[in-house]
């Protein structure tokens, strides 16, 4: 056994929690090793100090206080059924107050009722087949091009109308001062 192993077992050796073989080995080692012997001595001194600590007296009479308080409370409850009546009325009052305030804050008016009564329409989709999907896709592409053409035509029409109605010369004519306009 080396010193490290012995020192890890010294506490258990002190408490006599080792087998007789281990005890014998440690005893032999301590006899030859002054470092481990000193360690054992210090540990045993600590154990002795801890064992010699006196129990501190509680500042109040703890146990009597505990039992008298508990018994006192139990007597009070057994002889006084009003305790529970009081609690029940308090709970009922709380619930009443809660309902009152909630109705006051959120009153039920005709608009609220109509909003609540409205039926919500959900959009439902038909089931697609692969052919339909492709077809729809093509259609959408075609539509896209058609829409593009339409917008271009509209632009041309607008330009024509503008050209027709608006005067040709937008630039200011010479000789007329700007400030007078």
């Amino acid at each position, binding site marked *: 056994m080396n010193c490290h192993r012995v020192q890890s077992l010294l*506490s258990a050796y002190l408490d006599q929690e080792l087998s007789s073989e281990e005890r014998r080995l440690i005893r032999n080692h301590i006899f030859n090793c002054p470092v481990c012997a000193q360690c054992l001595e210090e540990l045993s001194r600590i154990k002795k100090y*801890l064992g010699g600590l*006196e129990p501190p007296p*509680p500042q109040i009479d*703890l146990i009597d206080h505990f039992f008298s308080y508990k018994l006192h409370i139990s007597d009070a409850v057994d002889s006084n059924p009003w305790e529970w009546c009081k609690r029940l009325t308090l709970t009922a009052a709380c619930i009443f107050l809660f309902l009152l305030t909630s109705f006051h804050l959120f009153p039920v008016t005709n608009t609220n009722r109509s909003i609540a009564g409205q039926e919500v329409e959900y959009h439902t989709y038909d089931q697609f087949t692969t052919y339909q999907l492709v077809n729809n896709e093509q259609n959408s592409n075609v539509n896209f091009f058609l829409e593009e053409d339409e917008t271009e035509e509209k632009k041309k029409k607008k330009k024509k109308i503008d050209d027709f109605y608006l005067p040709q010369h937008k630039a200011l004519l010479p000789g007329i001062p700007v400030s007078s306009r």
Partner: protein
Amino acid sequence: MLQTETLSLVRTAPAPDVLEEFEKQVKTYEKAFYHFAYRLTGNHDDAEDLTQEALLKAYRAFHRFKTGTAFDRWVYQIIYRLFIDQYRKKRRRPFVASLDESPPYLDQEKPKEVPDHSKLPEDFALRHELGETIQKALLRLPEEFRAAVVLCDVQGFSYEEISNILQCSLGTVRSRIHRGRRQLREHLHPYLNGERGKKQ
């Protein structure tokens, strides 16, 4: 809070013989319970709270206690679990101190009333000082090590009993006690050397 808890337990277990039995058991071990709580918490107020709360829990669960098994170990287990829970809660809560009030540790440093068994005032002073030093060193240990060391050295339980109380394996108990004592030795090293110096 405390009142409602007490009321609920009264309704569930009103039989007087149960209360008598419980009281008899508690009065047998009351000093040891308080001692254990004091060594864990390090001050009287917390120790009193811890003991009372543990006893309340024990009374509430007294119908589950098997007669014939050790009552003290059962209560020690409750005290230890409560202490660990409270310690974790405390650690999560940040410490808030008022600048106007005096620091709380000044109140705790008042000399406690200790019964004077020895007639010599020197003896008394030495023992008091030693107790304070050891308690401070104990408080510096991690709480698991502290509980194991206190149960072993102060309360005098065997490793098997401690493993039952702390709900862990024998190997864990052995390592906790070893590491706890090693740390205590480091903290008390100047004190141990001083003692030896005086003796030599």
